[in-house]
């Protein structure tokens, strides 16, 4: 395997849990600004790397502040970074849907992101990462064919 930048999977899960909770709270109180805010946080992770993600930084801060002994679980960065890109795109579309007042459609997409982030937080199953790996395999299949 080639050398790639590593990230902490538990940090990703912590950040995903935080974003899921924030999106659900935003939905309950109809804070539409929460969706572009989470989208922006995902965009930072996607564009600059997960170590710069505010969500991951919050996890690291909480872990340090409360001296939580959660082990670091290294994982290669490309799949979760791709997943963050997907999350950013969906949150971006949801935010755009709020502009003409299509709130139901916007919140549906936001809740989809919240659900997937919640799944990642609780199980470690990253649907975006699975899509990335599947796409990589499909690409390899095309090259071989």
């Amino acid at each position, binding site marked *: 395997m080639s050398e790639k930048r590593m990230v902490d999977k538990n940090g990703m899960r912590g950040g995903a849990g935080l974003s899921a909770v924030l999106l659900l709270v935003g939905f309950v109180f109809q804070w539409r600004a929460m969706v572009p805010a989470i989208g922006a946080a995902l965009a930072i992770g996607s564009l600059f790397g997960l170590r710069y993600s505010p969500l991951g930084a919050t996890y690291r801060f909480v872990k340090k502040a409360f001296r939580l002994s959660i082990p670091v679980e290294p994982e290669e960065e490309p799949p979760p970074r791709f997943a963050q890109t997907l999350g950013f795109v969906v949150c971006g579309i949801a935010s755009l849907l709020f502009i003409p007042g299509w709130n139901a459609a916007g919140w549906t997409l936001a809740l989809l992101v919240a659900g997937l982030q919640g*799944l990642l937080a609780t*199980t470690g199953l990253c649907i975006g990462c699975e899509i990335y790996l599947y796409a990589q395999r499909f690409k390899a299949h095309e090259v071989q064919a």
Partner: protein
Amino acid sequence: MIARIIIAVAVSGATIALAVLWRRREGRFDEGSGRFTPADLGVVKIDRPSAVLVEFYGEDCAPCVTVEKRIGKIAAEVPGVQVVSIDAGARMDVADRHEVRRVPTLFVLDPDLHVIWRASGVPSEDAIRTALLGPDWAGRPSPNGAPRQRVAR
């Protein structure tokens, strides 16, 4: 407000239900079928092992590293087990033939390379040991409770 709380709880409930379902399936060994050839495994000669453990891995696949560590440890403990790792991206033909849809996927083969068990995801160490050694290795049930052929001598 109440309707929104109900929707938020429903989304959370659906997420938890999916999580429970996924955890039950993740790394679970199911009975397999089919047969590998030495060419599939990329080896010229199989040393008549008691069992062959085949792992399909992929580049960028973090769970594959966890599985590799576990099978490395178990292979060191269980005599006669031959471990073969196959890059699913580089050996798409073999992966397709054995219906490998995600990585990591593990196969436990008998000495004649017939598939006994298969699992996708990250099985626990105990599940791998049980798949290799049979239901009675430590008085434990077979991977899914069903008795199956004992593989290791």
